[in-house]
C-alpha cells in the first residue's frame, strides 16, 4: 500500500552556495582571546568588550540542557563564531558585492523591499551588509539600523535594554550569544508612531562550519505599532552550523508589535535561538512563526505580560521532514492583572521527522482576572515519524480562566472520503486537508510568505490511501 507523499521543501533557492570568501574569519573555538579578538575586530566600546568576557565566563559555568534534542554533535571547537564578509554596510543594493547581491536577489529580498516593505536589513554571515528604510519613517523618528551602529550611535538606549530582557544567565546558548554576538537589527519606534508597512531583516549564513549570532533589539514605545519580519536561510554543508541568535522585544504601554518569522535554515543547522518580549500595560505582542528548516531546532519565544491588560498571541507551525528534530513551542508568563494569552500551535511530521511542542503557561499570584487558552494540533503523515506534545501549565491563583487542549492523529480517512464524494481527486482532497490544517497559520503571514508556505505544502500522491 502506498502512502501520502508530501514533497520535501524545494531548497534549490536556499542552497545557493557562494565561495567561502571573507574579509576576516576568526579561528575556531571559544576562548577569552578569541572573544577579545572579535571585540577588537568589531571595534566595541569598553563596556561591550567587558560584557562579552563576562558572558563567556557564564557560558563556561552553565551546563547543556538536560532535556530536549541531543546536542552532542555540537563542538564549539569546530565552529568559527565570527566571519566578516568582504564588504561593508551599504544603503544601496548597487554597492553590495555581486555574489552576495545575487543571493539576496534570488531570495527575493530587494523585490519585496520595493513592493511591500518599509525597510530592509540583510545580514550575510556575521555582518549586516545592507540596511535601508523609507524616508518618511526616518522623519517620524523611527530608528532601524544594524546593531553595531546602534551600540555606537545610541549607547544609552542600547545599554538600558541590551540583554536585560534576555539575561545571559537564562541558558548556555544565551551566554554564548552574549559573548560572540554580531550583526542583527535595532529598531526604535517613538511614542504614538504607527509603522503601517512591515520592516524586514533577512539573515543568511554562507560560511561553512561557522555560526550566526545576530542580536535583534526592538523597542516599540508607548502607543506605537510595528510589524517586523525575520527570515533566515543557509546552504547545506556536511558539518553542522550553529545559529544562536537573540531577539529582545520591548512593547511599551498601549503599543503593538507583531513579530513574524519564517525559518528555513538548511538541514545541517542547529538552531538554538532565544526570543523574548516584555509587554506593557494594555499592549499587545503577536508572534507568528513558521519553522521549516534546521537539523535541530530549540526555539520557544516567550512573552512576559508585565502590564495590566497586556495581551499576547502565538500562532506557529513546524514542519519536520527526514532527519529533522524540531523542538519548538511558546512560553508566557502572566505577571499582572487581566492579562490574556492565546496559543495556536500546529505541527506536521513526515519521513521520519520529529516535531515536539514544548511550552509553559504561568499565571502568577498577582495576575488575577487573567485568561489563557492553548490549542495544539499535530498531524502525522506516516508511521516512521514522531510527534510529541510537552506542555507545562502553572496556575498560581484562582481567579483565572485557563484551558489547554491538544490532539494528535493522521489525516482522517472519513474526511478524504467525504471530499472525494464531492468530486475531488484523492490527491486534491489530501492537499486541501493539509492546507486547511496549516491555514490558521498561513493566513497570519504576509501574502508572499503565505504563498511560499503553500508551495512548501505540495502534496503528491501515489495509489491508494495509506
Amino acid at each position, binding site marked *: 500500500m502506498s502512502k501520502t507523499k508530501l514533497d520535501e521543501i524545494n531548497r534549490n533557492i536556499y542552497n545557493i552556495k557562494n565561495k567561502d570568501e571573507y574579509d576576516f574569519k576568526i579561528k575556531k573555538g571559544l576562548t577569552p582571546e578569541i572573544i577579545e579578538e572579535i571585540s577588537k575586530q568589531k571595534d566595541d566600546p569598553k563596556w561591550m568588550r567587558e560584557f562579552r568576557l563576562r558572558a563567556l565566563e557564564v557560558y563556561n559555568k552553565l551546563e547543556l540542557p538536560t532535556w530536549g534534542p541531543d546536542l552532542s554533535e555540537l563542538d564549539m571547537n569546530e565552529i568559527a563564531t565570527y566571519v566578516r564578509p568582504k564588504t561593508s554596510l551599504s544603503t544601496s543594493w548597487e554597492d553590495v558585492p555581486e555574489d552576495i547581491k545575487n543571493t539576496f536577489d534570488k531570495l527575493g529580498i530587494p523585490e519585496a523591499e520595493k513592493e511591500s516593505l518599509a525597510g530592509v536589513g540583510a545580514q550575510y554571515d556575521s555582518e549586516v551588509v545592507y540596511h535601508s528604510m523609507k524616508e518618511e519613517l526616518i522623519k517620524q523618528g523611527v530608528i532601524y539600523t544594524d546593531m553595531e551602529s546602534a551600540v555606537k550611535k545610541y549607547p544609552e538606549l542600547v545599554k538600558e535594554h541590551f540583554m536585560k530582557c534576555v539575561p545571559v544567565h537564562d541558558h548556555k546558548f544565551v551566554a554564548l550569544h552574549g559573548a560572540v554576538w554580531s550583526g542583527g537589527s535595532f529598531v526604535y519606534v517613538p511614542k504614538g508612531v504607527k509603522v503601517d508597512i512591515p520592516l524586514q531583516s533577512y539573515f543568511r549564513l554562507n560560511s561553512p562550519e561557522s555560526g550566526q549570532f545576530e542580536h535583534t533589539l526592538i523597542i516599540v514605545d508607548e502607543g506605537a505599532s510595528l510589524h517586523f519580519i525575520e527570515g533566515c536561510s543557509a546552504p547545506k554543508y556536511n558539518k553542522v552550523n550553529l545559529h544562536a541568535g537573540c531577539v529582545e522585544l520591548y512593547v511599551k504601554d498601549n503599543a503593538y508589535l507583531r513579530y513574524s518569522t519564517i525559518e528555513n535554515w538548511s538541514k545541517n543547522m542547529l538552531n538554538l535561538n532565544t526570543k523574548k518580549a516584555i509587554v506593557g500595560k494594555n499592549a499587545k505582542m503577536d508572534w507568528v512563526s513558521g519553522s521549516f528548516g534546521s537539523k535541530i531546532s530549540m526555539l520557544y519565544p516567550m512573552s512576559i505580560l508585565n502590564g495590566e491588560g497586556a495581551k499576547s498571541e502565538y500562532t506557529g507551525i513546524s514542519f519536520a521532514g527526514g532527519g529533522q528534530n524540531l523542538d519548538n513551542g511558546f512560553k508566557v508568563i502572566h505577571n499582572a492583572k487581566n492579562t490574556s494569552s492565546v496559543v495556536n500551535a500546529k505541527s506536521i511530521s513526515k519521513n521520519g521527522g520529529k516535531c515536539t511542542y514544548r511550552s*509553559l503557561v504561568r499565571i502568577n499570584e498577582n495576575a488575577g482576572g487573567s485568561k489563557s487558552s492553548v490549542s495544539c494540533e499535530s498531524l502525522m503523515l506516516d508511521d516512521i515519524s*514522531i*510527534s510529541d506534545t510537552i506542555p507545562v501549565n*502553572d*496556575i498560581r491563583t484562582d481567579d483565572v480562566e485557563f484551558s489547554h*487542549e*491538544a490532539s494528535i492523529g493522521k489525516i482522517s480517512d472519513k474526511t478524504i472520503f467525504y471530499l472525494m464524494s464531492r468530486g475531488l481527486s484523492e490527491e486534491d482532497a489530501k492537499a486541501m486537508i493539509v492546507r486547511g490544517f496549516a491555514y490558521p497559520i498561513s493566513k497570519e503571514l504576509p501574502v508572499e510568505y503565505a504563498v511560499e508556505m503553500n508551495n512548501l505544502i505540495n502534496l503528491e500522491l501515489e495509489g491508494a490511501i495509506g
Partner: protein
Amino acid sequence: MEKLKLNETPVRTSRNFNINNIKLENVVIPERLGNFNHVTIKAETSKIEISNNTNPIDLTYGLGEELTSQVAKQANQKLKVKIDSKTNQEIQIGFQFDKENTQLVDNIEIEANEDTKSTIVIKYDSQKDVEAFHNGILKVQAKKNSKLNVILVNFMNLESNHFLSIENTLEENAKVQYTIIDFGGKNSITNYYSNIVGNSADNRLNTIYLGNKDQLFDLNYIAELRGEKSNIDMQVEGALKDTAKKHFKGTIDFKKGCKKATGNEAENCMLLSDTARSLALPMLLCSEEEVEGNHSSSAGKVGDKELFYIMSRGFTKKEAMKLMVKAKFNKILENIKSEELREQILNEIDERLN
C-alpha cells in the same frame, strides 16, 4: 537534610519549569520498621487465593530507587491476590494507621487470570493524631479477557506521608478500571504506570483529589500503548483549597505498532483559594501514525454565577462550594458501586472542606 527526589517524568522538560521530578524536604524514610498489624481483608477465600508469596520487585518506573528498594527489602505487609474464579469477585483490603501501627510498607500483587471479573477496594485510613508513613507498591497483571475494577482510597490525615507506585500490565482484551480517591497525606505522591500490551486492551483511570491546608499532591500517570486498538482514558478532577498544591504529570505514549489505538486525557482543577497552586504537564508522545490522541487541561475558580444561583436557594457560600465540588466529582464517584463507600467519600469531602 538531603532532599528526597521522586517521581521523574518519562521525558524531561526545562528544569526551570519545576516539574521533571519532585524534591521533598523533611521527609524521613524510616530505616527500621515496626510491625503493621491493623489490616482487614474481606473476600470469599474459597474463590480467591490470598497469600504473601509475592514476586521480587521489578518496576519500570516507580517513585524512585530509595522507595522502591525499601519495599523490596523491608515490606512489612505482603499480599498476593490471585483471582481465578469466573464469577464476579469483590475483595476489600483496609489498612488502618493508629498509634501502634504508624509505618506501613506494603507490596501488593494482583493477578487477574483469563476471563475473570473482579473488584478490589484498597483503603488507607489513619487516626487523626497519628503521624503515619506509607510506602507501597501495587502490581497488577490483567490477563487475556479479564475485567478488573480497582478502587484506591486514601483517607490519611494531613500529618502523614503517602507514597504509592502502581504498575499494570494489560494483556489482550483486558479491561482495567481504576478509581482513585486521593484526599489524604501532607504529601501524597503517586506513580501510576500502565503497560498496555494486548490488542484491544482498555485502561480507564479516574482520579479525584482534594487538597487543603498545605497538602502537596504529585501525580505522575504514565500509559504506554503497544497493543493494536488499545485504549487509555485518564480523567482527573480535583479541588484545591488554602495553600494546597498539585502537580499532575500525565503521559500517554503511543508506541510504534499500536495501530488504531486511542488515548484521552482530561485534567480539571478547581481552585478554591487564591493561594492554591496547580501545575500540570499533560504529555502526548507519538511514534505511530494511525492513532487518535487528545488531551485537555483546565484550571479556574468556581463560577460566580453558579455559586450565586445555589446561594439564592438558601445555601451558605461554604455549602454552595461543597455542592459544586461534589457535583464535579460525581461522575467519577458513579464508578463506585458500593453505596456505603460512596457515602463515606462524600462525608470525607464535607469534613475536609470544613
